[in-house]
């Protein structure tokens, strides 16, 4: 199934990526090649096969529902680009 630059632009929007106009064709070409490769999956008969999401089919282990974390807000916000009074700053969202 051929992929157009419009398709790639739509996926880029979903992925929150901004692909410059001048590289769009190259990106679409490489994207198409990868899709051609992964189309080989269709050669395999998978009727009735249960999808595998963990190589050991492990169950998610749960921990006790207890408070274990101390407040480390300052430490964890240190790498943030823009912080004020413990809040992350972003451009105005509501006018």
């Amino acid at each position, binding site marked *: 199934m051929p992929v157009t630059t419009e398709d790639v632009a739509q996926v880029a929007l979903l992925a929150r990526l901004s692909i410059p106009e001048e590289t769009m064709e190259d990106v679409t070409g490489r994207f198409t090649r990868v899709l051609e490769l*992964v189309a080989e999956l269709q050669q395999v008969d998978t009727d009735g*096969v249960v999808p595998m999401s963990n190589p050991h089919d492990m169950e998610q282990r749960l921990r006790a529902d207890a408070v274990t974390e101390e407040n480390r807000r300052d430490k964890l916000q240190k790498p943030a680009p823009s912080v004020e009074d413990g809040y992350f700053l972003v451009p105005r969202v509501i006018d």
Partner: protein
Amino acid sequence: MNSLDLSSATAAQLISALQAGTISSLELTQAYLQRIEKFNPAVNAVVTIDHEGALASAAAADQARAKGAEGPLTGVPLLHKDIFCTAGVRTTCASKMLANFEPPYNATVVEKLNAAGVVTLGKTNMDEFAMGSSNETSYFGPSFNPWDLKRVPGGSSGGSAAAVAAGLAPLSTGTDTGGSIRQPASLCGITGFKPTYGRISRFGIIAFASSLDQAGPMTRTVEDAALMLSAMCGLDANDSTSADVPVPNFQTALNGDIKGLRIGLPKEYFSDMLNADVATSIHAALKELEAEGAILVDVDLPHTRQGIATYYVIAPAEASANLARYDGVRFGHRCDNPTDLMDLYARSRSEGFGGEVQRRILVGTYALSAGFYDAYFKKAQQVRRIISEDFKKAFEVCDLIAGPSAPNVAFPVGAKNDDPIAMYMEDVYTLSVNLAGLPGLSVPAGLINDLPIGLQLIGRPFDEETVLRAGHRLQLRTDHHLKTPQLGADQS
């Protein structure tokens, strides 16, 4: 410096010297830092050097040893792949996105190796976010193969492999999502081991594909790999996928013979995709194992080829979810003067991520999007199970599977940049091992025109012991792992 030649020294040798008191950790650390200063400009294997931290831990190691309070690796220098979070030491994943990121905590692997006594010299170069097989997607530029500086060291743990091969450290850490420890180990002529999925905690390892990622040791010898692995393993409350299984003594596992061990050779690993000279080296190594008493049997891994397609859906899909956290808000690169929130996200991400990372995010997002999920992601997860069953069937008639780690020796820098598929083919023998979550070891199997190639040994889940024992037997019989590249004006 005594009789130690740091261009080829193993951790085991260094530990003996430290125990005998013929060298101190401080002297050793200074000597390795000097080697990094001298040789790193040519190989670009190290992206951050922690002089101060290394010298401080070396001094502490010497004190601990003087008090008789040493651990198994006390005073031994090591480099971490720059994907492991190191508290207060820049951790970039070789991406502009994290160029200034100082993690607030250590990865579990870092904590455990610190507890064992290692001295961390710094962080190694890698493909950006571990996405690549040549170390060429790094924000810091490619690392080069010490055997031929015009060639790639492999990837994604290319810097870690090049550093050990060049004697910039006796030990390094790597991570392996589809071959990222074994392929560079093969191309740089060192020993690299990816244990069973879940053996080592992923906590604090910057996530690529969570159901495939696994850390492991990169060393000169299997003996050193066993030593390092023992320090890295174990259940971790911070990683809900870390395995709740007993950790054996991997050093003791090296003892004993391999008489009667059945080694399966998948015919798909010896097809026309395999370079003929590589095939000759691999067969020669297998003959050595046969001489040790192993029995070679034929096995089938019929979906080896489809493993590539399976991997290149599952890994990008998981990556697209994991990398959604880079939003320009909480940490990482942020674009200048965003006009609105959408612009902040999209521009920060596209400025921060390199081309290959963005392409994989696109593929992953596509494979997970409404309307395509069943055809791509679910289908790939189904084929993943079939591939895993293929291995189970093979292990009914053998105890170990052997073949090449990579189809070719190291290729020239730039040779595969225009063709993503050619690059992906480099990992044809390693990818399916991650899909099935099995342990895989690459050990040097000889040189072809002075370029190394590795033999891959694959084991049953959580049977690292058999894999290590077979690798060790090979290294007792052969000297491939003792060969070192000639670097300009090399001297210990």
